[in-house]
């Protein structure tokens, strides 16, 4: 019976204790490997017009991934070292010196590592095929996904994980060097909670933490009102919320829970024993970790929401700025393409529509906060078109409709329906009643230059253009030249028209696919990294719970001997799970909401649906880890009496 054999046997019988650690490692490897593999997939890169964007996205993403993976694996390692310290102490007691113990650790880790590395690469390969299909689908590119296996990607992944392995060994070495034998033997018995009394300092800090977060939130809603101070404010918001979050975890949670505890005046139930009193002190000692989890959750939820908002709104945004399939800069170009389409036998409809520039007073129907944007005067530029060009619109001589206000402009302009709107040109003034507001633009942005467009009755249009000021008249009447394809546009028609020798044009379908690819790519990379973070932070909290369940085994035993049923204890623990997992999640979600709320309109046209979808999915996956922990607790409680 030699030592190596005993150690190997010990290790393999212990392997189920390392289950989640191994899972996490395999997961990290697969994730990283598939990521690298995709970034090296040349066939896909060629196909995508945003190829360079893709590679930068992948580089940024992989750096973030590495940071997440390294932190995570090192954290998991410290937990496992702690768990195993008694064993390590025993090895030293029977006379192994630290060098030998270190070699044992190296051997074990090597088995775990290189095993996980190989399995992970295999899974990563399959995963990458699946992810590639998802990515191409998101970007709406038709391309069959082949089975490219890249040795370079294997090399890169192996290199990273060997690097991490070396880091871990250094960590283990320092642990062994630093920790005295006696400490190792008694480590299991010392718990990390310090049960000092909560003094007035805690109360003050508790209030301060919550107040800081609240002020940070308030500032975030004021960002757009104070554009000149925006940088100062952004840093203020970040500083206040992050430090506030830390203080909240360090003091406020304990403070609030202690209030609840005091209100019970000593009549603590089993739920309180298992949740309130424990969490109170655990939160304090884990404040840093929880802050990190909450802040990075907020970051990933926020970024995922924003990128999803962009992706979600892409079609609509293009629709809003491009009402027609093709728009041309000159009349000649329109004629050229009319001929081309005739030849090809494609049915189409041409549109030619004049528009005049006008100024409208920011009073009555329009209320604007123009100072925020350093605008001069009290007028707003408007395009005016006649209702004669729209079959579906018929307006009375005193009515008008506003269309296509860009979403950025919407944040500082408000319209009031059925109020008078006044067009001005030198001394001439004409008031009309605002009867409707439409999101969709009737003029493409290349004609409207980003100003809203008002539709008026034909007679009013004539009247307005006659009274146009000299200054405005000099610019001439703007003309829209456009074509709509009757049967609906397609890539085939675009490719047919899009030749180098042909005159230039703007195409809706081209803009849409271009933007979908760009936003889809960004969304994919962010979602990938966000998901990696979600899983790792979930695992970290789960590991913590596993550790705590072992420490608390004694309490369950006592409680069950006192006559509490398994169900009652589980109910108490469920409450504990809700707090431990729920509080960081809630804080993360709240942070993310305020972050998204502060700037979403720069990214798209719709906030709630995409944001809620992202939050929902995130919370769902996150709560899986709470459930997993609870299942583990159940097992521990059941076994505690035997």
């Amino acid at each position: 019976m030699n030592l190596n054999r005993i150690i190997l046997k010990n290790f393999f019988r212990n392997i189920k204790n390392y289950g989640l650690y191994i899972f996490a490692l395999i997961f990290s490897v697969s994730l990283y490997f598939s990521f690298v593999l995709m970034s090296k997939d040349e066939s896909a890169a060629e196909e995508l017009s945003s190829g360079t964007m893709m590679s930068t996205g992948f580089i940024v993403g992989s750096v973030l991934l590495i940071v997440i993976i390294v932190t995570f694996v090192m954290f998991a390692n410290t937990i496992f070292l702690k768990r195993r310290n008694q064993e390590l102490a025993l090895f030293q007691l029977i006379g192994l010196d630290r060098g030998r113990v270190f070699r044992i650790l190296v051997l074990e880790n090597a088995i775990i590592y290189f095993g996980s590395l190989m399995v992970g690469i295999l899974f990563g390969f399959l995963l990458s095929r699946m992810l590639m299909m998802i990515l191409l689908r998101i970007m709406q590119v038709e391309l069959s996904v082949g089975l490219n296996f890249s040795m370079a990607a294997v090399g890169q992944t192996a290199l990273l994980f060997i690097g991490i392995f070396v880091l871990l060994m250094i960590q283990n070495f320092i642990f062994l060097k630093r920790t005295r034998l006696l400490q190792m033997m008694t480590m299991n018995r010392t718990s990390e909670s310090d049960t000092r009394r909560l003094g007035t300092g805690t109360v003050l800090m508790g209030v301060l933490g919550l107040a800081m977060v609240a002020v940070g939130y308030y500032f975030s809603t004021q960002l757009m009102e104070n554009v000149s101070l925006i940088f100062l404010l952004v840093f203020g918001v970040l500083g206040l919320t992050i430090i506030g979050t830390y203080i909240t975890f360090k003091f406020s949670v304990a403070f609030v829970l202690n209030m609840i505890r005091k209100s019970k005046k000593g009549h603590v139930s089993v739920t309180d024993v298992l949740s309130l009193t424990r969490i109170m002190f655990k939160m304090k000692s884990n404040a840093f970790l929880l802050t990190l989890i909450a802040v990075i959750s907020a970051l990933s939820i926020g970024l995922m929401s924003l990128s999803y908002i962009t992706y979600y709104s892409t079609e609509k945004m293009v629709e809003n700025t491009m009402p027609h399939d093709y728009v041309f800069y000159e009349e000649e170009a329109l004629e050229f393409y009319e001929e081309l389409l005739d030849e090809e036998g494609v049915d189409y409809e041409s549109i030619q529509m004049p528009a005049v520039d006008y100024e409208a007073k920011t009073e009555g129907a329009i209320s604007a906060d123009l100072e925020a944007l350093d605008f001069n005067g009290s007028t707003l530029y408007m395009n005016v078109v006649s209702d004669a060009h729209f079959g579906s619109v018929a307006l009375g001589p005193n009515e008008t409709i506003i269309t296509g206000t860009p979403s950025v402009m919407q944040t500082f302009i408000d319209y009031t329906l059925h109020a008078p709107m006044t067009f001005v040109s030198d001394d001439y003034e004409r008031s009309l009643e605002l009867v409707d507001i439409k999101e969709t633009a009737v003029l493409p942005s290349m004609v409207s230059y980003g100003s809203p467009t008002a539709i008026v009755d034909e007679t009013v249009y004539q009247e307005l253009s006659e009274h146009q000021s000299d200054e405005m008249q000099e610019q001439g009447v703007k003309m829209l030249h456009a074509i709509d394809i009757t049967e609906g546009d397609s890539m085939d028609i675009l490719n047919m028209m899009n030749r180098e020798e042909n005159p230039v044009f703007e195409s809706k379908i081209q803009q849409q696919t271009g933007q979908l690819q760009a936003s889809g790519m960004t969304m994919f990379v962010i979602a990938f990294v966000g998901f990696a973070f979600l899983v790792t932070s979930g695992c970290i909290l789960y590991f913590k719970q596993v550790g705590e369940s072992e420490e608390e085994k004694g309490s369950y035993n006592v409680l069950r001997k006192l006559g509490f049923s398994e169900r009652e204890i589980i109910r108490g623990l469920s409450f504990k799970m809700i707090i431990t997992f729920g509080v960081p999640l809630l804080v993360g979600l709240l942070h993310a909401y305020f972050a998204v709320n502060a700037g979403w309109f720069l990214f798209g046209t719709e906030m709630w649906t995409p944001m809620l979808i992202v939050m929902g999915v995130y919370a769902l996956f996150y709560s899986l880890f709470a459930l997993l922990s609870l299942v583990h607790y159940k097992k521990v409680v059941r076994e505690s009496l035997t």
Partner: protein
Amino acid sequence: MILEAKDIKKSYGNRFNRTEVLKGIDMNIEKGEFVSIMGASGSGKTTLLNVLSSIDRVSSGHIQIEGADITQMKDKQLAHFRKNDLGFIFQEYNLLDTLTVKENILLPLSIRNMKKDEVDRQFERVAGELGIHELSGKYPNEISGGQQQRTSAARAFIHQPKIIFADEPTGALDSKSASNLLKKLQQMNVASRSTIMMVTHDATAASYSGRVIFLKDGLVYSTLRRGGRPQEEFYKEIMNTQSVLGGVGVES
């Protein structure tokens, strides 16, 4: 003289907040002795055992085991020393759940090059003496606490160390298992002339030994020798000393 300790001091804490646990202890232990250390909780008995057994370092003083000063040894030398000369028994058994009883017992032998039949001979010897032979294929969680502690004792004896250190070995056992274990320890002490040093707060456990050293506030308070007296008489004397010390019924 197997163990000789001179003026051992041990203190914990930092420069501003020091607690002196051992305040200068002198002690001599002869080869083949069975010594108990008693004292109220906080008297420093576990700390004394830890420093004597090289698990912890002294703040000042010297400990010589068979002429070798362990306070001067480097880490690697200490490991070598533990491997050859020391055995340990703890209150919470300290067995590896993943190994069978036999594997646990043989663990100290596995780190030296020994012939297989010699290893088996040693195992037969201790397992027979401690009455755990039929358990050899079982895992620790399949046997009782008393059996686990006897396994732990077998592990301490297997490599025939010069001294065995036992920290509250009966602390987690019921009285029957405890007396069973103590009788075995006593037998092994006589049969193989191994030296045993045991920390305990239990007067009954101490009455199995040949000498009891009482600690109070980090100093040796008194020493009782059993001599040729019957165990009951020795037990009464221990109880008397303990009540003078004020340590009756005080859990460690």
